[in-house]
C-alpha cells in the first residue's frame, strides 16, 4: 500500500508538471476545444466504472457502476465528437469554405 502511494505520488507530480507545461502553450485560439478535449480525456474514469459494473459483486455496486459507465460514456462520446466538430471549423484564409 505504501509502495502504491509512493508510485502514485511520483506519477501525479510528473503528470501535473507535464500538464502545466503543455497546457500553458495551448494557443488561446483553441481554449474552447481544450476544455472539451480534457473533458473527453478525463472520461477515462470509464475503465474503473466498467470493472465495478461488470464484476457484479453486489446489486448496489452493479447499479452504481452501470450509472457511472453511462455518465463517463456521455463525456467520452460527446467530448471527442464536439472537439472534432469545433476543430473542423478552424480554417486558414484562402482555403475554401
Amino acid at each position, binding site marked *: 500500500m505504501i509502495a502504491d502511494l509512493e508510485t502514485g505520488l511520483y506519477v501525479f507530480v510528473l503528470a501535473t508538471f507535464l500538464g502545466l507545461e503543455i497546457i500553458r502553450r495551448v494557443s488561446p485560439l483553441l481554449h474552447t476545444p*481544450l476544455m472539451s478535449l480534457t473533458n473527453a480525456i478525463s472520461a*477515462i474514469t470509464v475503465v474503473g466504472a466498467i470493472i465495478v459494473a*461488470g464484476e*457484479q459483486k453486489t446489486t448496489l455496486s452493479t447499479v452504481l457502476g452501470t450509472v457511472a*459507465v453511462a455518465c463517463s460514456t456521455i463525456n467520452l462520446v460527446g467530448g471527442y465528437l464536439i472537439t472534432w466538430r469545433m476543430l473542423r471549423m*478552424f480554417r486558414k484564409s484562402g482555403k475554401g469554405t
Partner: protein
Amino acid sequence: MSLMIGRALPLIYLAAAASFILALKWLSAVPTARRGVVVGAGGMLLAVGATLLEPTIATYRWIAVAFAVGTAIGIPMAMMPMTAVPQRTALSHAFGALAAALVGTAEYYLRAPAIGRFAMGALALEVLLGSLTVTASLMAFGKLQELLPTRPVVWRGQNVLNLSIFGLAAAAGVVLVLHPEAAWLFPPFIGLALLFGVLLILPIGGADMPTVISLLNAYAGLSAAAMGFVLDNKLLIIAGSLDGSSGLILSIIMCKAMNRSFANVLFGGFGQIQAQAAGAETRVARSAAPEDAAEILRSASRVVVVPGYGMAVAQAQHKVRELYDILTKAGVTVTFAIHPVAGRMPGHMNVLLAEANIPYDKLVEMDDANAEFPQADVALVLGANDVTNPAARSDKGSPIYGMPILDVDKSRTVLVVKRSMSPGFAGIDNPLYYLDNTLMIFGDAKAVVGEIVKALAAEGTH
C-alpha cells in the same frame, strides 16, 4: 487470453496515457490539433477495449446498456450549437464528477472496513470532490442556461455557514479514514458534500460561471486522479492530473484577464451592487442608423471588428461572415480583435467565428490588436462591452480597474452595436459610449449587421 491481457494491460494503459499527452501537445496549434483528437480517441478506445477483456468482468449486460445510454445522450450533447458550449461544459463536468463519486461509493461499500488507510484517504477525497463538483456544476449549468437566477444570492454570515458545512464534510471524511467501519457516516458525508456544492455557487454571479467551471474542471480532474490512487491505476492518475492542470491554468488565465483573484471570484458576490450605479448617467451618446454605419465602413481602409458576448447571444456570427466577405471584396482590410475573456468562456469568440468560416489567421490576440487600433479607421464593436471599457485604464474607482482591455477608443471611429445603453456582465457604465468618436447603433447584433450588409450590397450595385 485473460492472462495475456493481465500482463499487457499496464503497457496498454501506458500507451493510452502517452496518447493523451500527445493529444494535448498537438492541440497547442491549429495545424496539428485534429491529429491530436484522433490520437487521443485512439488511446481511449485501446484502453476501454483492453479493460473489457479483463477476466473479473462477470457480465457485459449492464455495461452494454450503459454504453448505449451514454452514447444516446453523448451524441446530441456534442451537436449543441456553439453558443451553448459553456452550459454543455458545465453539464459534462457534472457527469464526469458523478462517475467518480459513484465509483468511489461503490468501492467503499465493497471494500470497507477492510480497506487500507491510505486507499480510504484517496477514496474520501474522490467522493468529496466528486460530489461537490456534481451539484456545483449543475448549479453553474442552471445559471448559464438561465434556469436559475443569474444574480448572486448573498446573505450575512454566508461565508461562515459555507465554511462550516465544508468543515463538517471534511471532518466526516477524516473520521471515515480513521474508522472505515463507520458506514452510517458515509451517506451524511456525501450529503454534506452535495450541499456544499450548491452553497458554493449561490453567491457567484452568472457571468463568473466560466471561471467557476474551470475550477470545477480542476476539481473533477483531481477527483479522477484520487480514483486512480484508490484503484492503483496510473492511467487515471495521469488523465486526472492533465485535466486538473488544464482547469487550473484556464482559471488563472481568466482571473488575470479580469484582474481579479480566485478569492474575489468565489466569495466576492461580483455583479451584485454595481448594477444600481448605472442609472445615474446624464451624458448623452450619439446614435446612428445601420445605413450610416455602412457608409463609414465603405470609406474605411482598415476595420477591426471587436466581437463580444452580444454576438454570441444574437448568433450573429454568420452575418458577420457576410460583412467580412463584402468588405474584403471591396478592398477593406478586416481583422478581428479577440479579448481573452470576451464572451462567456475562454476562446468563445474564436469558435463562433471559426464556425462561420472566418479564417483563424484573421483573429488577432489582445496585445497585437492594441498595436493595430491607432492605425484603424473603424473599430466595430459587436455586442462587446466590458472588454472595451476605458474606465479599466483610467478610473481607479471602477470595479474593473486594472483589467487589460482592447483600446478601441484609439481608432478613428468607433461603431458600437448593442440593443440599449444597459451595462454588460460587470454591471457598470461604459464611458466609451460618450466619446466624440463613438457612434451607437442600437439593435440586435444579427439584425444590425444584416442591415449593414444589405446597405453595402445595394451600394455596390449602384
